[in-house]
């Protein structure tokens, strides 16, 4: 460590076009999804994605708490994205900070865009996402886990929601950033795709991108989502082929 604040920026992209962990620009980190990882929940899934470890559970449709949120014509989707205190290098204060609350809101809205909520009036579908180990892209890992958990719970949906972040690393648009790339990168664009319609139900962005760069980022992200979609479907097939919690499967 040098003087305070003068951190060394690592080489993020080799002259051969390889990234810090040897990946190419359009390559995902290894992704493992286990559907049905918990006993108590109505549906659950565990995701290991690069160095991210994320658990998701679904309860419901069940009674709405607090009651005044109840809607007479449809179910509400309440998502809670939470990071464990030990999930990051420096201990995080437990509980939902403002970042987690914002992420919870956009994830709830993403799922409410695909769930057939009108089939369960006056109920709540509660989606809990716990980040146990974080290494960039936790909201995307959370959405992937939650969406498999929703399917595991038998909640009717238009489609699963694959999700990935695209960023800009050493001037190049790159798929699925890991922590070092995110920290020193120039932009971050998390998204979640409805594969059937090709539309995005979650989209955020921070950094600096020109309009053509953003178009390229969307294209790369959509392609990444389609590959993640296959892994998600395989996890569900594995779960229901045996009838009990399946062994973790490698990325498709």
């Amino acid at each position, binding site marked *: 460590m040098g003087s*305070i*604040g003068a951190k060394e920026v690592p080489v993020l992209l080799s002259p051969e076009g390889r990234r810090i962990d040897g990946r190419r620009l359009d390559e995902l980190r290894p992704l493992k999804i286990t559907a049905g990882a918990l006993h108590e929940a109505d549906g659950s899934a565990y995701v290991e994605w690069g160095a991210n470890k994320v658990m998701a559970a679904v309860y419901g449709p069940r009674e709405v708490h607090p009651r005044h949120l109840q809607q*007479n*014509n449809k179910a509400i989707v309440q998502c809670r994205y939470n990071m464990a205190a030990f999930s990051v290098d420096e201990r995080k204060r437990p509980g939902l900070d*403002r*970042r987690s*609350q*914002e992420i*919870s*809101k*956009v994830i709830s*809205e993403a799922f*409410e*865009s695909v769930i057939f909520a009108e089939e369960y009036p006056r109920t709540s579908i509660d989606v809990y996402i716990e980040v146990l180990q974080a290494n960039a892209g936790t909201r995307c890992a959370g959405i992937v886990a939650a969406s498999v958990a929703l399917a595991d719970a038998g909640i009717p949906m238009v489609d699963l929601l694959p999700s990935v972040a695209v960023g800009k690393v050493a001037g190049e648009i790159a798929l699925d950033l890991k922590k070092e790339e995110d920290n020193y990168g120039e932009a971050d*664009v998390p998204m979640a795709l*409805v594969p059937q*319609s*090709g*539309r*995005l*139900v*979650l*989209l*955020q*962005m*921070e*950094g*600096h*991108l*020109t*309009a053509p760069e*953003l*178009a390229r980022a*969307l*294209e790369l992200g*959509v392609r990444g989502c389609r590959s993640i979609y296959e892994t998600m479907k395989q996890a569900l097939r594995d779960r229901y082929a045996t009838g009990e919690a399946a062994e973790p499967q490698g990325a498709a």
Partner: protein
Amino acid sequence: MTDEVAAEILTTHILDLARSGRRLDGRGTNDYREIKVEPGFVVTADGSALTTIGTTKVVCGVKLEPGKPFPDTPNAGVLTTNAELVPLSSPTFEPGPPHPRAIEVSRVVDRAIRAAETIDLTRLCVTPAEKCWTCFVDIHVLDHTGNLIDAALLAALGALTHATVPAKRFGIRDADYPLEVKHLPVECTFVRLGDTIVVDPSFDEEQAAQGRLTVATDELGNVVAMQKGLIGAFSPEDVNQVVERALRHGERLRRIAQGSAP
């Protein structure tokens, strides 16, 4: 229940109009309501601005106080953005801890200010690791008739571009000096109404919307922040089209925020 039925009828009507490119208040799909930014609205603040977009009214006050830099950024000042959706601004807001909707407004505005490097935070450092300026950007929504995000960032930008660093008051320098603003981000918010995507949604249009998309751009033509909100979806082509529209609106919004003629 009658409220719900009335809302349903209104939503259907808004979507019907949108199908032929029309809107409830007669605007075109790419028209903003009238925008005004009035800097210096609050004299007790170090910088302030009152922004109206149509009847949406937002006031932003900037305060600078000496503080301590964060351990991981010892050479930079601190910037915090907070938005309050106080109950007086809408019958739908209740008192209590910040609603996720308020948190979203502040975080989306904060993201644009930070990503665009509106303020060079290293210039707010007084003594590395010991003393710096903490810049509080507090946004108060007074009248919520739609499109809070755009109004909030315009107010913040108006307040920051006219802010004074109170160096004399805190004995840090002999005289106060103007806060240096490096870049000028503005946000443009769009909602989907059926197959039509309209800019600057009114409150009723937000209720009827099938997805909302906010794009922040800077004066160099970069996209610096985005947020998709509400229930609904956008295709990548929709997003690219919205970005183009946001870049075009951006130039005019920036001029208004800086206080020159619209």
